[in-house]
């Protein structure tokens, strides 16, 4: 008797698990598929399912002019922010891991902390500092804010990767006469290259996608792509957003998968 009710319970339990998995899977997949399907519609207004199919939404992204300036601004900001984040983080991680500095753990923790700040509170704090320094609405200010926003990601990627490069390899090169600089360039940095590229990609994507700092710090003049989409969703919907969204999804997925692959190569 107990075994039979137990078996029924077991079945119910695994059934619940399976239903949960299907629900979770559907919940995750549906919004993305929905956008992709809508992007291939030629209807004047957004409606599901589309009545006519075509590539009008895609051509209008590149011909209407509204979207090209924000895209170009976002690309510039993201490239510079990623570069700046690398310049700050790569030497610092090497110094922290190979220098036995007291407080290295504290530095790493403080550099990662912004990842867990409620972004709205952090944006208000940055707003006050930027207002004081006259950086509100400036290109350089936005690059700076995006770089510091990307620093935690790059620190995590690089410090995990460097933990896997054994200092003995550098030592071996140095005992054979290589200078420390040469050992680093020839051994450590070469082994770290995939992680550096992976970290740079994550930094680039995080800046390209950033929508809160730009709202608080960008002033009226600087309109990045996320800001442009944000504004047009808020004040009326331009159907070509579905095409931009699809392009973004595919490109970002490609970049992030590439970054993950690069990170794996180090292991």
């Amino acid at each position, binding site marked *: 008797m107990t075994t039979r009710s*137990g078996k029924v*319970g077991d079945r119910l*339990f*695994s059934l619940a*698990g399976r239903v*949960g998995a299907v629900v*979770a*899977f559907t919940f*995750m997949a549906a*919004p*993305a598929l*929905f*956008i992709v399907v*809508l992007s291939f519609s030629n209807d004047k207004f957004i409606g*599901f399912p589309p009545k006519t199919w075509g590539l009008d939404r895609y051509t209008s992204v590149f011909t209407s002019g509204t979207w090209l300036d924000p895209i170009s601004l976002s690309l510039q900001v993201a490239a510079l922010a990623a570069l700046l984040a690398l310049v*700050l983080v790569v*030497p610092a991680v*090497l*110094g922290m891991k*190979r*220098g*036995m*500095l007291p407080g290295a753990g504290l*530095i790493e923790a*403080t550099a*990662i902390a*912004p990842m*867990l700040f*409620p*972004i*709205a*509170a*952090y944006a*208000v*704090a*940055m707003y*006050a*500092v930027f207002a*004081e320094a006259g950086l509100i609405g400036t290109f350089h200010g936005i690059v700076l804010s995006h770089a510091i926003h990307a620093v935690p990601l790059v620190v*995590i990627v690089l410090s995990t990767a460097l933990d896997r490069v054994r200092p003995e390899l550098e*030592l071996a090169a*140095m005992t*054979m*006469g*290589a200078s*420390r600089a*040469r050992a680093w360039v020839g051994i450590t940095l070469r082994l770290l290259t995939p992680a550096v590229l992976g970290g740079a990609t994550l930094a680039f994507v995080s800046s390209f*996608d950033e*929508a*809160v700092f730009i*709202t*608080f710090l960008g002033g009226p003049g600087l309109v990045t792509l996320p800001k442009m*989409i*944000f504004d047009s*969703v*808020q004040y009326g919907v331009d159907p070509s957003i579905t095409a931009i*969204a699809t392009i*973004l*999804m595919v490109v970002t*997925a490609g970049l992030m998968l590439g970054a993950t692959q690069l990170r794996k190569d180090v292991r």
Partner: protein
Amino acid sequence: MSAAMQQATVPAGRARPGKTWSAQLSRRTAVLMVAPLVLAVLLLVVYPIFKLLYDSLTQGDGPGNYVEAVSSKAIRRAFVLTLLNSAAVTVLSLGLGAVLAWTLRLARRRLVTALVWAVVLLPFWMGVVVKNYAFALLLARDGLVNTALRALGIVDEPVQLLYTPWAVIAGMTYTMIPYAVLALYPSMSAVDLELLNASQGLGASRSRAFRSVLLPLVLPGVIAATAIVFAISIGFYVTPVLLGGAQTPFIATVVGDDIFTFFNYPRAAAASVLLLAIALAAIGTAAKAVGFKSLRGGLG
């Protein structure tokens, strides 16, 4: 012949006479290498937070900013809404995230693993604004969800879904599930499946095996994930604005309005400090329970 080969033939002792070999840097070099990052973090992480705290206590009504923030009905309501919604988002993200992470743990076929990882990472690929745009379209009065509800005969008239707390919870949960899965997966992938088989072999039901064997093993991951998801959730700005509208003001929305519409920076600073304090309390509690390492591991 390359320079490296030539250098390699130089006897080590002559290259650096009298030195002991060590992979360690001199302290001076290490300090120089770390300095730019430390400077950037001091200027753009530490200073802003201290300035926020200082301003909230000295500008406007001084400490009265906090009284004003807490006694303002709009801000109090926003705080309650933010905390309740974030709690709901945390529970949902952990529930759905745990199911997905466990599916990944059990999956044997590579196709299944790849597909599940793909949907877990989709929100990252879609980007902040696009995700919310998708939910705005899905939940609109003439959107797909309403159409489906009417087709199934569950409702007769289109129901208001967009600009309700439910829309915000759905959108935020979608965003936070990847974080939950990434935080839960390391502890789940470390679970030895034989332990579960053994407990069931000894007569435990599945739910008993889940409660008494699996749950204790993954608890550190669950605690880390809870803290991470909650702390990030309470700061959301884009989702409450796009999916919640004016009817569902989050603390982030109110703070933004304080700065740009009412020009009341001191009150915004006070509310932001309260928000930060809540996040720190959540993170601190979790770090105390499971250690900083688990928390750091939960971030990827």
